[in-house]
């Protein structure tokens, strides 16, 4: 149990997927303008990354490795993720319209979010087993959600400020991301004995 907790904390805070590893930057910058969409996207990302890292881990361990096809992992993972997102979307639409309404529009967009493929590949690289992969996926997605919700909060304040012309728009958002990144680097000092 402690091992899983460590994996989650490392994935969510120390190796934050957006601020330290630069995966999923597009949606991080693009959807962080308001709090509600940012939080919904975060929820959808947690959902998709957790499921996809579970499926990717099972496929890798029980299909690719026995067949000696490890080098096919990139192709297999991206197709599986794309198919999986479609299935999850259809499933949610049928079974839970409320959840679908909240996360629905974000699900298809996540397919091409590099964080999803990135987590699946990192899990393989770190030689995580099934349980560890699921925890790492969940932790990474929680880290993504923390980052995007924090940025959305900061941007809500920035919008009210009078900034010099050239700084408006992208530069000030990128500078906030830089400061958040410095803050998250502080988590690097955490150690687990």
């Amino acid at each position, binding site marked *: 149990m402690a091992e899983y907790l460590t994996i989650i904390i490392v994935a969510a805070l120390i190796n934050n997927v957006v601020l330290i590893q630069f995966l999923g930057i597009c949606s991080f910058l693009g*959807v962080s303008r308001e709090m509600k*969409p940012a939080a919904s996207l975060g929820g959808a990302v947690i959902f998709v990354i957790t499921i996809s890292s579970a499926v990717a881990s099972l496929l890798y361990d029980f299909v690719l490795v026995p067949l000696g096809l490890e080098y096919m992992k990139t192709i297999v993972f991206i197709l599986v993720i794309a198919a999986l997102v479609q299935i999850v979307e259809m499933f949610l639409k049928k079974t839970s319209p409320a959840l679908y309404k909240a996360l629905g529009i974000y699900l298809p*967009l996540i397919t091409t979010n*590099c964080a999803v493929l990135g987590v699946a590949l990192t899990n393989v690289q770190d030689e995580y087993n099934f349980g560890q992969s699921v925890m790492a996926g969940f932790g990474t997605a929680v880290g993504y959600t923390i980052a995007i919700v924090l940025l959305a909060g900061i941007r809500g304040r920035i919008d009210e400020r009078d900034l010099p012309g050239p*700084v408006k728009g*992208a*530069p000030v958002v*990128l500078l906030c991301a830089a400061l958040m*990144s410095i803050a998250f680097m502080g988590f690097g000092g955490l150690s687990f004995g």
Partner: protein
Amino acid sequence: MKQMNPYVERIYNGIVKENPVLVLMLGMCPTLAVTTSAINGLGMGVSTIVVLIASNVIISALRKVIPDEVRLPSYIVIVATLVTVVELLIEAYLPSLYAALGIYIPLIVVNCIILGRAEAYANKNTPGLALMDGIGMGVGFTIALVILGLIREFLGAGTAFGAQILPSGMEPMGIFIKAPGAFMVMAFMVMVMNALGMVTRANDMVESGCDGACAACAMSTNCGTKKEAAPDEQIKAEPAAAKAAAPAGKEGQANG
């Protein structure tokens, strides 16, 4: 420019007019992640050029064969195959670069530039033009990566392409080759471009959110181009645009 040879025009377009990183703001993840040094930026750029050129030519050659309904999965399979080839080649011949770029090599698959060019250009034009488009876009991407890598390497390590520039007594600012430095240098580059009045899609992307997914963003035709054409209108219609952009991306995905 009017008389420019269409092949030459493609190269100019990719490097200057529609530079994928500096103007279109595509492929931000590898741009920020691997530019800790100029060499890494160059390595990433060249790998992307190879994949981009090959995918552009293949997709253009197959544009009448691939049915419209399954084009996105087909493109993804083609690109993923090419990326796997490049990854194995780098692993075999350039192990140090392989170690430096790590997971970002397989992630070329989800680089928005590649699927974006396939959807926006290669599937509508001849292989010759698609080849030039791939070269132009790829070189434009590489130039941007090398510039970013040079700035970060100089500030963060005092070197350029590995050669010592700063006198050894001077302490370089290490933060620039760490994660925050990437955001900072990019912020200042966009700031300078804003101050010089250059057209960039950076602010649009941050304001409207396009749709939050790189490739889908490059694919939805009403995203980049329309907003560039009418920036003033876009600012007024921001919240509406953010809402409208998301279903647009969804539609693109549903087609696949």
